[in-house]
């Protein structure tokens, strides 16, 4: 069972950030359960944490609800705000950096998701300042934007827009 945790304060944002992920799961006939960021998800094998609107930071008030992901090392795809939550829980700072729009990502290390540079869509204004503990897969202007720590995979971009294959690889190959 896949747990999809949305990070959206407003219902309208869920149509924009949660629904596209659900489409992918439905298209692939994958069972899922939806959880709010305000509650702790349970009874799931894998987790996808969705992104949210640029102005939305309410989820940062609820990061403790995500501690179990790290404690139990649950396979997780943390998209945008999801990446901010998990890296913050791991003790890293978020620094102000605005990346909005479509950008080319340079592949810096081998990974299961892709073997070449790719374009991705960003909606982010705070970027986690990570260190060498992470396996960095992709960078944008020297900023790590696609990386991994244990069973958790981080995308600062929104793979549901231009990189569905990343979500599918996470679902089928991780």
């Amino acid at each position, binding site marked *: 069972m896949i747990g999809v945790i949305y990070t959206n304060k407003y219902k309208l944002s869920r149509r*924009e950030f949660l629904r*596209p992920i659900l489409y992918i799961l439905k298209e692939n006939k994958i069972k899922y359960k939806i959880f709010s960021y305000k509650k702790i998800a349970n009874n799931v094998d894998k987790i996808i944490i969705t992104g949210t609107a*640029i*102005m939305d930071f309410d989820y940062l008030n609820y990061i403790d609800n995500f501690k179990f992901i790290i404690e139990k090392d649950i396979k997780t795809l943390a998209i945008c705000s999801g990446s901010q939550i998990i890296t913050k829980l791991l003790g890293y700072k978020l620094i102000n950096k605005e990346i909005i729009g*479509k950008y080319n990502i340079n592949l810096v290390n081998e990974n299961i998701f892709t073997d070449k540079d790719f374009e991705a869509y960003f909606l982010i204004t705070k970027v986690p300042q990570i260190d060498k503990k992470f396996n960095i897969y992709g960078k944008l202007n020297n900023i790590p934007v696609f990386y991994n720590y244990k069973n958790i995979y981080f995308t600062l971009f929104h793979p549901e827009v231009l990189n569905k294959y990343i979500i599918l690889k996470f679902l089928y190959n991780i």
Partner: protein
Amino acid sequence: MNLAVLYSGGKDSNYSLFITSKYYKVSVLLNIIPKNNESYLYQYINNKITLLQAKALSIDIYRAEVNESEEKTLKEALIYLKKEYNIDGLVTGAIRSTYQGSKFQKICKDLKLWCFNPIWLINEKIYIKELIKNNFEFIITGWYSYPLDIDILGKKVNTYILNKLIEYNKKYGINIAGEGGEYETIVLYQPLFKKRINIEKYRINIEKNYAEYIIEKASLI
């Protein structure tokens, strides 16, 4: 949450308005009028019909003609609406265009406004079906792709037209929702309208690569 809706009069902005109204107050419609029909951001043809639609909706409309640039016009208009209507955010009908999406997101962010895109990445086939199911009455007013289908102009989009769009999608790769600029629509009625738009006079303009249904006279009934 007090919102403005970026409104062109077509199906996407009307459906976004319809969805938004279920949750929040929409205090004003914002209609940006581009210089010509080559705009990637806004709808040009039949833009005066938005005045009638706003009346049918009983919602204020603010129309801004593009001067220097489309982005600057949007930014200035939003500054005005923030001051006059005290809006907290903007709703757009962007579906898949990252060009459109990122322009709107960036301008809103710069002005500290929320940006909502309720039909972002919607499945196009499901979307058109939803419009029909929700009694949206809309016609195709511009056709800008191959094959040049003049007969489709002015037709109300129903299951028959949807099947035609699906067929064109399979044969020629057009986007079913017209997100690639393949076609434009005008909404004549939707559930939030208190009256219907009645087209009294129109003409068809056929060019080499495109054709348009120009509304010359319309009223509310």
